[in-house]
């Protein structure tokens, strides 16, 4: 919201510099959107819930209370208008529930001319061009009070009615700026004689626009369901001062103040006579009442604020005190404060006006609550440290990817803006491969990369989120060795890779391996971790049996392990010390089986082991 200083000073007798006024607005919740320059216009950010702060008076009111100076409000024309002949009445017909109020006033015999200097000065300072006295007055009052309004030339109305309804497919309207718009079936519009004249809450049409020839006008101000305005504006890609205000929650009572002010300015600067016309207002608003408890004010602020102080602030913000006790204050919320929901919002206003910088600091002194950090969080942090220690760099890649129609488990987004980011990833490897390619392009030769993060899938009944660690290395050896090292550091000395390339620990599948990468399901791994394993205080002796095996090509190490496991030997562990491709018919594995030194059965074991390998896998002993 732009606030020209010259306009602001019409209502607030502030003696502060522009910079200090900006600082005060900042404390009130309206920070500068753009830095100050020589134009003496404050460009303040908009607040989502305070429709009154989209008006100069609304901003002036807050500033006046904060600076503790007087607020001067303009006087509107409150005398009722004349009664018009029935035949000259513009009939109002509302055919949709999205209109809460629609008030119209008629002006006859007005003279269109340039606006007075003071008015054009203010509009220009705001950044709006002056057009003529009537259009300028509607714009001026909209900015002053925050209530959009329209003037239509009665002579140009196709019928003696204003009807509000949903548009039909294909209806057309040319806006005041000359843009031709073809409407779809669900835009809310004002029509006259069946023809669209205004897009509700968005923009007026050229057909009934005020020109230099105009003598009679119908002035309207409406209050609509903001969702409808927002929808039309987005659909038609029209954003303007009217939309900015109509898509906020305005109070229907604001219409009286705004139209009274406009009436007074029209009569003063365009002359003519004012006649009442229809005021559609089926459910008048009942003022909202809130109760402030002094105890709650103290409890939330941590300050000992006196009731008199709280009362003074609320009264100056135009809350009406309807009841008062030693510990409570019942107030009626002013019509322009549509943001007020609960008692705490009153507290918010009181503290805001007392300046947040004056709230004292208080140390958290309550007992420390029970820790609810999930174990997996710490565990994944530990995995990060272990991998960083191995020389791997962590990456975080996008969780969004493109749709892969072959992947039926993929979670697809219904409204993504781009087709390359319209689904959720199902693995981490794709992202890491991309990084790896970028590295290769820039000749960055790194040990490897890893990511710890979530992947997503859908099942028939719900959506699943899985936690993975994927490690990508520069070659197979680094990858295999990284996996062994990680598991070893976690106290897991024995694991197998199955023939499906899954990582198996104690009969549990915890992930899988690929030629240069491996993936671990972190919440599967966590239950297998031995936190204090890996340290010996008694040095035990071991003895081992080395076997050189010639295995047919179709046999892999996982098969050997699986056969040996079925023997249920009492060895401590089995290692593969080397692997060599011998010729076109066999591979050579050198494996080492380790026993406790006290074990006396190595030789007999050897016979059983070799016999079993030969009968199950056609493996020959080389030695």
């Amino acid at each position, binding site marked *: 919201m732009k606030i020209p200083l010259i306009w602001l000073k019409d209502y607030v007798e502030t003696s502060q510099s522009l910079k200090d006024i900006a600082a005060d607005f900042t404390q009130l919740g309206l920070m500068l959107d753009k830095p100050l320059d020589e134009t003496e216009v404050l460009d303040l950010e908009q607040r989502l819930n305070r429709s009154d702060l989209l008006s100069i008076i609304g901003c002036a009111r807050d500033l006046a209370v904060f600076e503790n100076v007087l607020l001067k409000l303009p006087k509107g024309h409150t005398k009722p208008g004349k009664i018009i002949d029935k035949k000259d009445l513009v009939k109002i017909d509302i055919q949709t529930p999205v209109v809460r109020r629609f008030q119209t006033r008629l002006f006859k015999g007005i003279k269109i001319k340039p606006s007075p200097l003071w008015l054009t000065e203010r509009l220009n300072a705001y950044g709006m061009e002056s057009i003529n006295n009537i259009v300028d007055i509607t714009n001026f009052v909209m900015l002053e009070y925050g209530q959009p309004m329209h003037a239509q030339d009665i002579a140009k109305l196709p019928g003696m009615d204003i009807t509000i309804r949903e548009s039909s497919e294909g209806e057309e309207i040319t806006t005041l700026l000359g843009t031709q718009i073809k409407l779809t079936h669900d835009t809310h519009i004002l029509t006259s004689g069946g023809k669209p004249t205004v897009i509700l809450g968005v923009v007026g049409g050229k057909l009934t626009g005020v020109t230099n020839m105009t003598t009679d006008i119908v002035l309207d101000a409406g209050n609509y369901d903001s969702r409808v305005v927002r929808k039309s504006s987005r659909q038609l890609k029209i954003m303007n001062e009217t939309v900015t205000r109509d898509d906020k929650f305005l109070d229907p009572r604001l219409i009286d103040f705004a139209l009274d002010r406009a009436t007074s300015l029209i009569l003063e600067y365009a002359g003519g006579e004012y006649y009442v016309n229809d005021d559609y207002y089926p459910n008048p608003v009942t003022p909202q009442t809130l109760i402030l408890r002094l105890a709650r004010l103290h409890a939330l602020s941590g300050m000992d604020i006196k009731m008199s102080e709280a009362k003074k602030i609320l009264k100056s913000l135009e809350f009406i005190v309807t009841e008062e006790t030693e510990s409570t204050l019942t107030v009626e919320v002013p019509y322009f404060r549509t943001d007020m929901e609960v008692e705490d919002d009153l507290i918010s206003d009181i503290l805001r006006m007392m300046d947040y910088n004056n709230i004292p600091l208080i140390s958290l002194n309550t007992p420390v609550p029970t820790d609810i950090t999930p174990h997996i969080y710490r565990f994944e942090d530990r995995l990060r440290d272990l991998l960083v220690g191995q020389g791997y760099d*962590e990456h975080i890649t996008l969780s969004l990817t493109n749709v892969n129609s072959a992947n039926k488990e993929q979670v697809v987004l219904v409204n993504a803006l781009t087709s390359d980011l319209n689904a959720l990833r199902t693995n981490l490897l794709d992202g890491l491969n991309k990084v790896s390619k970028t590295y290769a392009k820039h000749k960055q030769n790194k040990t490897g990369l890893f990511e710890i993060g979530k992947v997503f899938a859908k099942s028939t009944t719900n959506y699943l989120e899985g936690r993975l660690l994927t490690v990508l290395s520069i070659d197979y050896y680094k990858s295999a060795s990284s996996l062994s090292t990680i598991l070893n550091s976690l106290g897991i000395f024995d694991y197998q890779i199955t023939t499906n390339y899954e990582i198996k620990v104690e009969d549990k599948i915890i992930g899988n391996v690929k030629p240069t990468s491996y993936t671990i399901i972190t919440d599967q791994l966590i239950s297998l971790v031995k936190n204090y394993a890996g340290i010996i205080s008694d040095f035990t002796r071991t003895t081992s049996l080395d076997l050189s095996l010639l295995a047919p090509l179709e046999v892999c190490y996982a098969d050997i392990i699986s056969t040996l496991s079925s023997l249920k030997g009492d060895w401590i562990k089995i290692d593969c010390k080397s692997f060599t491709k011998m010729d076109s018919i066999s591979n050579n594995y050198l494996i080492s089986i380790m026993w406790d030194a006290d074990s006396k059965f190595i030789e007999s074991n050897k016979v059983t082991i070799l016999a079993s390998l030969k009968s199950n896998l056609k493996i020959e002993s080389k030695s």
Partner: protein
Amino acid sequence: MDTKIKQTQLNFSSQVEQISTPADLETLRIKYLGKKGELTLLMKDLQGLALQDKKIYGPILNELKKIIESKLTEKFTELENGKYEELDYDLTIPGPIISTGHLHPTSTIIREMNEFFRYQGFSIGEGPEIEDVEYNFRRLNLPDGHPATDLQDSLYIEEPNLLLRTHTSSVETRLLSNYEPPMRVVVPGKCYRNETTSITNSAFFYQYQGFVVDKGITMGHLKDTLTKFHQFLFGDDVKLRFRYKYYPEVSPGMGVDMECRFCHGSGCQICKYRGFIEVLGSGMIHYNTFKACGIDPEVYSGFAFGMGLDRMVMSKYGIKDIRKLYGGEIVYL
């Protein structure tokens, strides 16, 4: 006396030159400076001298003691260093760097922040990234139709109820709904919004959220916690500005700005001539949020705060494009 002193000095000088091991050096030290050492005995002899002679020989002996001590130290260092002269490498060459990996900048900053809050008794909270509007909006005092819940701003899995969480506040409502107070929690996490990617905006970003719920929690506690947090991150001289700011899920709401560390408040390009940089949003947890999560707001009160992490990560690491941060275009030195 004169002769004795000179002789002792001469003897020591020639003997110390011949020493070749630290053990011999120690023997020599005892020979001269030990309880019955030669110099010690000479000093004892002083006592039998006339006052006049004492005044002459006292300082001379003290001087000699200093010479012997410094010579012994010199010889000791020489022997120690000599040990390395025969090595087949040069100890004075700086070594190559052992290649370790690196945490992602975002992980590093999250750890730094977690470290502060862990010591203040906060837990770390987690929640789903595919979220229900109930937790992402409704329980945060954002009823259906509120501008912030606009379908076009969020990424939906199933309209209108299932989306990718738009903030970490959804974890707050989940935890408030599932645990009993008191609670102190921080939530670092990924969030999503329906936006085309640019230098500063990404459909995917990180937030850091925190909240405290207990009996008697006030705005004063919130201000104090955030002040200490920023002192931890930026140093004790950090200057914060607390101001009113509207957020639907809190009331009263509070914005926090930090004085620009480049211009110290006078206004520059970095702070867009504001003198301050917005760092986070916060406030007292909304009455309606407490009720929606099944906590009695008449018994408990609490504060919450949240901030975007990426901007802080980028400024700390000097990364100018958010796409590089999560696109793998960062190279660790």
